[in-house]
């Protein structure tokens, strides 16, 4: 195979000489016919004048279009993404070079999406392995215009060979998933709908993230299927009732939830989906199930499953790299292009906000305040056990103790928070103990630290106080009990407008306040009382 390389730097050490012909530096006047393939491999030259460099990079796009127009559409055309190997930003606010690079890459991705013969190579995937001192050897750049360090040529060759192989590689079509200890922690049949580990703190969070990531994968066209030893009614109930379930019935194209052996089930799935066993990947935490499938259905890929839930994300990445990566024309690249657009948009947005409130408003923060019930009580107890920083009294409760307080007539609310970037789940709670005729004491008030910093604590407490007011409560008392970790809440009640009536030797503070006027809450939150 012969290849013609368009380049603006010396890239011969990396792509080699065998079958390769190179253009002059930045020369597009020749587009030879008599080759089997074209490669476009430009690099961002180290130029200090950002405006001039941005113009230069913008011109690459026009050059690429000219070359593409002249090259035969029947021959592969490989475009390397542009990467700034040596960003020189002389002032803090220069974006023109980055913008130009993003524009070029977006254009290249779009070309790859529109034309079957165009392939886009993410050069950054190689570059990001190295620090800037390793990437460039200035001696070789100045002697021979080799910006990328020639000592990286062996690494580059290995990477490039893999890219070329994957260009030709067939993507797997279907991912078959187990449920218990695979899509969630624990065993549904034993732990129950609210007992399985999903959502909330680790390890539940790890499984939610894993489900979200799988959902994204399915959006790139990978078929998801289920193969689990479970009662289907239990699973359906979990889908219906567990609020943290991301992957539900509608996301699976086919499923076998029964007590048959998994090889039989996978055969049936292949038949139902009308795809070959060799385009299936089977994920199961149970080594004996994996072994059975490996033995009976050797065409099915069966990767090892990680021991620890926190290893699910690297596992996912490997899964994609090994089986589901698409290099040619790609929805993956398309979504990457959308990401670029989103980043550009986000940059534009950052400068647009006049103040913090406006920014908060744009986040679409949704705060749901809901009373404790059987679905969230375990989470509430768990939060009292674990939360240290934003916790006014740091009293620890078991689930049974929470139930006991409810039976004693206490009011317990919790809060669920989401914004346009995602759902944080139940992340705050308040325990209110009736005191006297129409008074109420805040026994416990805490918020998970992952949602702090957006004024949510304020909105939550004020919403609850407004509820209390409607219920006829007229007086509020509260305590701040200092610990080694909750210093950030020392002034919380002062800021809320409460009066500190006493301070103990250990720093504990005792507050009182009448509940008379409606508390005003910033309108940057959507608040629902459920």
């Amino acid at each position, binding site marked *: 195979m012969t290849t013609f390389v368009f380049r603006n730097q010396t890239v*011969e*050490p990396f792509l080699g000489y065998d079958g390769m012909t190179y253009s002059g530096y930045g020369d597009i006047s020749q587009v030879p016919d008599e080759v089997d393939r074209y490669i476009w491999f430009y690099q961002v030259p180290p130029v200090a004048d950002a405006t001039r460099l941005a113009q230069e990079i913008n011109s690459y796009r026009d050059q690429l279009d000219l070359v593409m127009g002249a090259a035969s559409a029947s021959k592969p055309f490989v475009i390397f993404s542009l990467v700034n190997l040596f960003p020189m930003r002389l002032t803090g606010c220069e974006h023109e070079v980055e913008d130009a690079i993003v524009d070029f890459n977006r254009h290249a991705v779009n070309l790859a999406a529109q034309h079957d013969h165009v392939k886009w190579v993410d050069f950054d995937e190689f570059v990001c392995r190295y620090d800037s001192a390793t990437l460039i*050897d200035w*001696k*070789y750049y*100045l*002697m*021979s215009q080799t910006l990328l360090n*020639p*000592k990286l040529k062996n690494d580059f060759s290995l990477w490039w060979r893999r890219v070329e192989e994957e260009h030709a590689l067939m993507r797997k079509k279907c991912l078959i998933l187990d449920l218990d200890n695979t899509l969630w922690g624990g065993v549904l049949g034993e732990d129950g709908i609210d007992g399985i580990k999903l959502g909330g703190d680790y390890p539940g969070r790890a499984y939610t993230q894993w489900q979200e990531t799988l959902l994204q994968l399915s959006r790139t066209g990978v078929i998801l299927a289920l193969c689990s030893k479970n009662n289907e009614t239990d699973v359906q109930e979990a889908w219906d009732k567990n609020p943290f379930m991301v992957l539900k019935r509608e996301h699976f194209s086919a499923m076998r939830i029964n007590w048959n052996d998994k090889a039989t089930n996978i055969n049936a799935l292949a038949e139902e989906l009308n795809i070959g066993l060799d385009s299936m990947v089977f994920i199961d935490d149970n080594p004996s199930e994996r072994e059975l499938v490996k033995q009976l259905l050797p065409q099915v890929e069966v990767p090892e499953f990680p021991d620890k839930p926190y290893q699910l994300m690297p596992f996912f990445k490997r899964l994609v790299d090994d089986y589901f990566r698409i290099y040619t024309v790609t929805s993956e690249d398309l979504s990457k292009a959308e990401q670029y657009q989103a980043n550009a948009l986000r940059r534009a947005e950052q400068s647009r906000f006049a103040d913090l409130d406006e920014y908060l408003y744009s986040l679409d923060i949704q705060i749901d305040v809901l009373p404790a019930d059987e679905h969230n009580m375990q989470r509430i107890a768990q939060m009292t056990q674990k939360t240290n920083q934003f916790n006014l009294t740091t009293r620890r409760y078991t689930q049974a103790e929470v139930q006991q307080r409810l039976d004693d007539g206490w009011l317990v609310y919790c809060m669920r928070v989401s914004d346009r970037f995602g759902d944080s789940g139940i992340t705050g709670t308040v325990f209110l103990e009736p005191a006297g005729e129409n008074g109420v004491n805040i026994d416990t008030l805490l918020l998970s630290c992952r949602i702090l910093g957006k004024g949510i604590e304020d909105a939550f407490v004020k919403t609850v106080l407004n509820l209390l007011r409607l219920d006829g409560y007229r007086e509020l008392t509260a305590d701040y009990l200092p610990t080694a970790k909750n210093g950030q809440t020392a002034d919380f009640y002062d800021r809320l407008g409460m009066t500190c009536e006493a301070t103990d030797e250990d720093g504990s503070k005792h507050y009182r306040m009448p509940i008379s006027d409606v508390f005003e809450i910033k309108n940057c939150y959507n608040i629902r009382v459920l």
Partner: protein
Amino acid sequence: MSLEENVLDIMRRVFEMDEVNTDASQKNCERWDSLHHLMLASELEEFFDIELEPEEIAEMTDFTRVVDMVKSKM
């Protein structure tokens, strides 16, 4: 392998030629052009873990001078 043999080996690999001998020079070896010269320098730096200055690289015009340069660095 002696240092000389190692250098010959590197030259064969860089120039992609089976026959490179101790007489080789930029003048008599077709593949030994300026770019291969730099690749040779880069490979020598890596293999012997040495640093060559641009002026020194320019002086290494034949096998003997390459060997002398490498020896002077070690």
